[in-house]
C-alpha cells in the first residue's frame, strides 16, 4: 500500500501526436518519466489492440493504471473508451466477435492468458454500468449475490452492512433491506450496484459512465464516494463529462480515433496537467470544448 503523492516536478513526457509506436515508447519504459508508472500499478496494458471481427476498435494502447487512484478515460463518442474499459475485466468476452491482442498484466499475470478464467477476473475486477442494473431481488440479496456465488454460506449481515456503508447507502436503506432493489431511486440504485461490486472484494472497480443517467446531486454523491473508495480500490471511470473527470480523477487518459475509427491514446497523465497544460493540440481542443 502506497501513500506516495505525486511530485509536481515530474516530467510528463513529450506529446504523442499519432500514438505511433515510437512516440508511445517515449512515454513508457522509462520509469520516472511517466507519472502514471511512478506509482505501483493495478493493471499494466502493453500494446493492447481490441477488435470486433475485422474492425479494430482500439489500437496499441500501452498504459499503467495506478493503484488506489481514480483514472478517467475521456474522449469523443465512439473512440473506444468503453471497449477499452470492458476489456480490462474481460466483459468483452461476452461479445462473440470481440478479440484482444497484447497483454494486460494484473498482479503480474496476463488477464488474457489461455489458462485465465474470465469469471475469476471479474470477481477481482468489478464493474459498475452506465445504467444502474440492480438484480430484481431484495437490496440485501443484491449485495449478497457476489459472496454467495463465491460460496459464502449462512449469515452475511455484517458483510452486507459494511458494503452498503462503504457505498454510502446504508443509512438510506437499513430499514428496508428486504425490499426490492428496483424500488430505489436512480442514484441509490447506482450506489447499490457499487455496493454489489465491492461485495466480492475486488482490487479494482471499473465504472462505465456511472453518472450519465443521474441528476447532479446523485452524481456528486457518486463522485464523493469514488474519492473514499480509492483508499482501498483502484478505480477506472469512463466519462463523457469533462468536469467530472477534472473533479473526481487523479489521472486522465485522453483517447480519440484515427481515420480508420480505431481508438488510441493521445495523451495521459495527472488530471491537472491534462486539463491545464495539455501537451497535444487534440487534447487541448477536446478539454477546452472546441471538439467532441
Amino acid at each position, binding site marked *: 500500500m502506497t501513500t506516495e503523492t505525486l511530485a509536481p516536478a515530474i516530467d510528463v513526457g513529450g506529446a504523442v501526436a499519432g500514438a505511433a509506436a515510437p512516440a508511445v515508447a517515449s512515454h513508457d519504459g522509462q520509469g520516472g518519466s511517466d507519472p502514471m508508472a511512478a506509482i505501483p500499478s493495478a493493471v499494466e496494458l502493453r500494446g493492447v489492440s481490441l477488435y470486433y471481427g475485422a474492425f479494430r476498435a482500439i489500437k496499441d494502447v500501452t498504459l499503467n493504471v495506478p493503484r488506489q487512484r481514480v483514472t478517467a478515460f475521456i474522449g469523443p463518442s465512439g473512440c473506444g473508451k468503453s471497449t477499452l474499459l470492458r476489456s480490462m475485466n474481460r*466483459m468483452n468476452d*461476452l461479445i*462473440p466477435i470481440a478479440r484482444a491482442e497484447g497483454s494486460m498484466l494484473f498482479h503480474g499475470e496476463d488477464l488474457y492468458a489461455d489458462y485465465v478464467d474470465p469469471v475469476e477476473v*471479474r470477481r477481482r475486477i468489478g464493474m459498475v454500468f452506465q445504467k444502474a*442494473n440492480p438484480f*430484481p431481488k431484495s437490496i440485501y440479496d443484491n449485495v449478497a449475490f*457476489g459472496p454467495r456465488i*463465491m460460496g459464502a454460506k449462512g449469515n452475511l449481515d455484517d458483510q452486507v452492512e459494511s458494503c452498503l456503508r462503504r457505498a454510502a447507502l446504508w443509512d438510506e436503506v437499513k430499514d428496508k433491506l428486504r425490499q426490492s432493489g428496483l424500488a430505489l431511486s436512480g442514484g441509490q440504485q447506482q450506489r447499490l450496484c457499487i455496493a454489489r461490486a465491492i*461485495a466480492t472484494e475486488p482490487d479494482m472497480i471499473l465504472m462505465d459512465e456511472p453518472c450519465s443517467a443521474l441528476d447532479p446531486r446523485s452524481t456528486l454523491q457518486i463522485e464523493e464516494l469514488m474519492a473514499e473508495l480509492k483508499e482501498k480500490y483502484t478505480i477506472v471511470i469512463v466519462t463523457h463529462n469533462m468536469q467530472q473527470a477534472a473533479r473526481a480523477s487523479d489521472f486522465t487518459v485522453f483517447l480519440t480515433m484515427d481515420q480508420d475509427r480505431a481508438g488510441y491514446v493521445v495523451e495521459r497523465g495527472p488530471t491537472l496537467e491534462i486539463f491545464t497544460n495539455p501537451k497535444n493540440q487534440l487534447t487541448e481542443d477536446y478539454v477546452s470544448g472546441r471538439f467532441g
Partner: protein
Amino acid sequence: MASQSATSIAVQRSLARQRRDATGLAFSILLLLAMLLTLVILVVLLVDQVTRAIPVFQERGVDFLTSGLSSNPANAGVFQGLVGSIVMGMLVAVLCFPLGILTAVYLEEYAGDNLLTRFIDINIRNLAGVPSIVYGLLGLTVFVAFFAALGFPNNGRNIIAGAVTLTALILPIVIITSSEALRSVPKTLREGGYGVGASRWEVTRQLVLPAARPGILTGTILALARALGETAPLLLAGAILGTFSTSGSLQDLFTGPYTVLPMTVYDWARKPQEEFRALTSAAIVVLLVLTLSFNTLAILLRNRYQKRW
C-alpha cells in the same frame, strides 16, 4: 386585456378550434367492431353449447362425469375421456416443459449465433406451422410402431404414444415462446451478473430464468391447453373412437386403450341418435372447463412469480 396582439388571437383561435378527425374516428369504430364481432362469436358459441348441456347435467349430475363410454345415450359418460385428457395433460407437461425450456435456454443463452443455430431456429419456426395431422402420422409410424415393436399390448396404441405425439406437436411452440421470454430479459441484467463474477450457469439459473419465468410459464401452459384440444393427431396415434371398457388398473391406464375428451366429442357428434346432441354439448363444456382450469393455473402461477418484485 383589450389590446391583444395578433399572435395571441391566432393562438386562441387554433386552441379553440375543434378539428374533425374523421379517419381517426372511423378507425376507432373499426377497432370496436372487430372486438365486438370476436366477442359475439365466442359468446354465441358458449351460450349455445351451455344451454344444450344444462339439461344433461341436471338430469345426470356427477353420473355423467363418472360413467364410461356407452352406445346407450342414457348411460354414456365422459369418464374415460376426462381421465385420458387429464393424464395426457400431465404426461405432455412432464415431457414437453423440460425439453422445450432446456432447448430454448440452449439456443438463447449457450449456442452462438451462427449458420447452424439460425438454420435450427428457422426449422423450429416452420415446425410450429406444420398441420397437426402430420404429427399424427409421425405418431402412428414412429411412436405407436415403437411401442408395438416392444411388444406393448393393444398394438402400441397407448396414451404414452399419444402423449409423445402431442409433445412433438407443441414442442416448437414451447421453444419459441420460451425463447421470446428469454430474449426479452434485458442484457443489462446478464451484464450485472457477469460483472460480479457469476458464471454462465449462475447467470442463467439465478438471474435470467427467474426473470423469464412468467413469460415461459404463460407460453408453455397455453401450448399445453392447445394440446388438450387436439383431435386429429390422436385419431392416427391410437386414441379410441367408440366404446371400450377400462379395468381401472394403473398399468391399463398407461398401456391399454385410451381416449381423450375431444375424441369423445368427435365420436358423439357423429352419432345418429338425437340424444347424443345434448351429450356432445355437455362433453364440450367439460372440455372447456378443463382447458380453462389449465389456463387459470397458468395465470395464477405467472402472477405469483410476477408479484415478487
